[in-house]
């Protein structure tokens, strides 16, 4: 009320108003509670301030008790008044005071001839001392190494969403060709080979046969590779042991070791090899710690990446995201059991029906929804701290790579580019 009353005048005559306020204030202070008592007895009065420059003794005073009381109780009338502030109050933004004590372990993937292998490149991930993009400057701390994206290849034809199949249909019966397409056509940085046909419930391909596929793929492409099993703990164990024999020197990633395996056998066996392990746990931080702890007994930390398990938007990403974010924050705050780089199986995004199902036209073609789902899921994982991505759709991978570019090199924004979005025709 009072605010409204006064601010209307302020807009027009700020200075006059200031004086007026002061007058009213002084008046109130002057008259004080005594007058108030009198007024309560005698009823209505009214103040009419005809002009701010008039003298106090020229005022005809008729005071309304409620108004006066407010004046008495609120001495800071001036502050309560509208834009009493007439100049900008210069304020500096101070970057937050963050203290992170932990550092993520650096892991090398793949080996070039000079590193003792046959790959044409190798990668390092990890090394972070801060969550991603938490500060404006300091790329080195936030993302000291570029996150790496591996493309999925399977050792048999599997049902795939149309929008992915489109890119690989002719090569899906030949994993080596499939891998070649990923590298030559879609510039895959790494290949993530899945030997799913070894699953006793699928084809039960013997381990000896399956490792030939690994050799074929390593021949066909020269990027570093990851080899995954079927998820059957016993079979995977057998498989990984054989793989570790044939790929020694290449720093191949084994995808994955988990708590259901006899770690005393498998981890012990590969102790003196050079393969890297992905330690998988199902969205459970305690288990992630437990598995890392167990692995530390056999392997140097530089050979362990952890996969805390992720899911697509709408299909459990809330869990996946929070577990990953918690893991990374805890690691950076000093939890040594979680300081491994993080792998994210973003391909899981395709489990979302919204990514592959034909829906009502309102929701647009699945050819867009699919890659959009995978890309969005990848970005969310990136912001949670993922270092190594396993993905499928070429366009999703291309987009994620672009965004990683944008985030890694700081180029200052150009305010003019968006300043007047409000007044622009946008089409």
């Amino acid at each position, binding site marked *: 009320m009072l605010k409204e009353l006064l601010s209307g005048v302020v807009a027009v005559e700020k200075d006059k108003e200031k004086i007026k306020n002061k007058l009213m204030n002084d008046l109130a202070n002057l008259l004080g509670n005594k007058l108030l008592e009198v007024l309560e007895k005698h009823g209505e009065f009214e103040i009419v301030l005809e002009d701010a420059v008039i003298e106090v003794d020229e005022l005809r005073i008729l005071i309304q008790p409620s108004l006066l009381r407010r004046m008495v109780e609120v001495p800071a009338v001036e502050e309560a008044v509208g834009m009493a502030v007439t100049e900008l109050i210069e304020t500096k933004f101070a970057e937050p005071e963050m203290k992170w004590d932990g550092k993520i372990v650096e892991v090398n993937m793949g080996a070039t001839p000079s590193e003792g292998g046959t790959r044409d490149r190798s990668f390092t991930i990890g090394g972070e001392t801060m969550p991603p993009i938490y500060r404006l400057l300091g790329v080195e701390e936030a993302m000291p190494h570029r996150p790496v994206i591996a493309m999925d290849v399977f050792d048999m034809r599997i049902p795939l969403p149309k929008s992915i199949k489109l890119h690989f249909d002719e090569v899906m019966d030949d994993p080596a060709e499939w891998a070649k397409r990923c590298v030559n056509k879609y510039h895959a940085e790494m290949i993530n080979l899945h030997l799913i046909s070894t699953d006793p419930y699928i084809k039960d391909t013997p381990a000896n046969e399956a490792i030939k596929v690994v050799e074929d793929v390593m021949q066909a492409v020269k990027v570093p590779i990851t080899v995954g099993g079927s998820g059957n703990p016993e079979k995977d164990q057998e498989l990984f042991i054989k793989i570790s024999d044939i790929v020694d020197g290449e720093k191949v990633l084994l995808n994955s070791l988990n708590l259901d395996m006899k770690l005393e056998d498998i981890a012990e066996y590969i102790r003196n090899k050079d393969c890297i392990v992905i330690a998988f746990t*199902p969205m459970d931080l305690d288990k992630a710690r437990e598995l890392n702890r167990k692995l530390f007994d056999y392997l140097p930390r530089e050979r362990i990446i952890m996969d805390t398990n992720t899911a697509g938007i709408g299909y459990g990403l809330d869990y996946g995201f929070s577990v990953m974010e918690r893991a990374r924050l805890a690691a950076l705050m000093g939890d040594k059991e979680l300081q491994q780089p993080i792998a994210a199986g973003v391909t899981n995004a395709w489990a979302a029906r919204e990514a592959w199902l034909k829906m009502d036209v309102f929701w647009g073609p699945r050819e*867009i929804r699919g890659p959009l789902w995978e890309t969005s899921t990848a970005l969310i994982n990136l912001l949670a701290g993922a270092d190594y991505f396993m993905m499928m759709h070429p366009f999703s991978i291309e987009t994620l790579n672009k965004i990683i570019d944008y985030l890694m090199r700081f180029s200052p924004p150009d305010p003019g580019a968006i300043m007047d979005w409000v007044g622009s025709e946008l089409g």
Partner: protein
Amino acid sequence: MPWKAISPIEVYKILPRTNCKECGEENCMAFAVKLVNMETKIEKCTPIIKEDKYKKALEKLTELLSPQVREIEIRSPKKTIKIGGEYVMHRHELTYINPAPIAIDIDDNMSKDEIVKRIDFVEHFEYEYIGRKLNLDLLAIRSVSNDPNKFKEVVKFVSENTSLPLILCTFNPKVMEAGLSVLPDSRPLLYAATKDNWREMGELALKNDLPIVVYSPGDIDTLMTLANTLSKAGISDIALDPGTFVGPNGLRYTLSTFTMLRWKACNEDDKLAGYPLIGTPITAWKMIEGEKDQKMWWETLMAVMLLTRYSNLLIMHSLEGWSYLPVVMWRFNLYTDPRRPVAVDPGVRTIGDPKEDSPVMVTGNYALTYSLVGMDIQSGKVDCYLVITDTEGIAVECAVPGRKFLPEGIAEVLKTSKLDEKVKHRYLIIPGKAARLSGDIEDVTGWKVIVGPQDSKDIPKFVSEKWDPKKLSEIYGN
């Protein structure tokens, strides 16, 4: 440092401690516990709200329970939307509170038909997800003409054709004032005060008690200067827009600025940073070159990133359903309470009208799994029993490797529900994704296992082709 839970004792000490039960709780202590868990509101304790003698106590309690990010209301005569009101930076520390509303723009150069189309889009956008309806929330009217009369007309037209709350967007105070003049009973959000118009815009916000965005793209010192100035001038409902830059120049600036502001609000108790953050993925339409699809693609990705990085409201432009689908679903995910898994109770559900020879199917108790499977079975008009086993609210594909889809759990449900008395056969159809557990499930339950389809949408087809208990018993010799 980060969120520290308030102790219920602290709250209890401030409450009236009369145990009058008006709040619906047994006593003040029980109410205090619910308050700190955010399961109830102060308003439920009528004595502390109504009685004068508790005025001080109420102030103290409000201060104690106030969020790190100010909560602001945007209203139309019929709807209220709250933005901000967050207590924590990371959802796992507690939970996020007010899902960031999504606004779609209208500009004052658009034809009436086009405006109506956009209003309809927002009002009718609806996606059903685990039994909830996901929607869009409000409209942002932009002055492209820069003509007060034109803006006023359009604002009037929109407000007559929708009950949704509004954001008025212009940097010209005269235009803003004209728009406001036709919204006497609303509380629109004013977008925006800048370093050039802050006096007049601030005046409008103050005079009409309206929430206002301060906007300073790419210049965070000026953003803080504006927020500080307006708050000192007596405006309490302020929101911050540090600029949404899409693409190579500025994406990093935007994400780190949003993050730093929220960090300061939550961890350093910085009041100026503790205002809601406004994200404008709509700027993709200015910054991204090329086809419309390209602009929409980046607009959506920007929205997803900004949601993840603390934006409390999003303004967007696309009119395609696909642009918003991942955004509304991710928003739902992000704002679910991580303290409670999105799960349904284990047990047996009957779908349709199952008989003694109807199929028995198994699934997990993740709410989404259950609702999808249920929908698919229903739409295929399959009568069956659905066994929901406790996977701790985790989806089947994760529960299987995670050892949460347990044969023992299934056996437990079969036993307690006495399903063996309801059906004559002994066949369980399990999800294709749990195929590798077939043997274990057979051993533990004593029922024969049939591996069902990978995806529940194929259940009706699967049942019509494969389900024939008589034939099955011939094969399996039951």
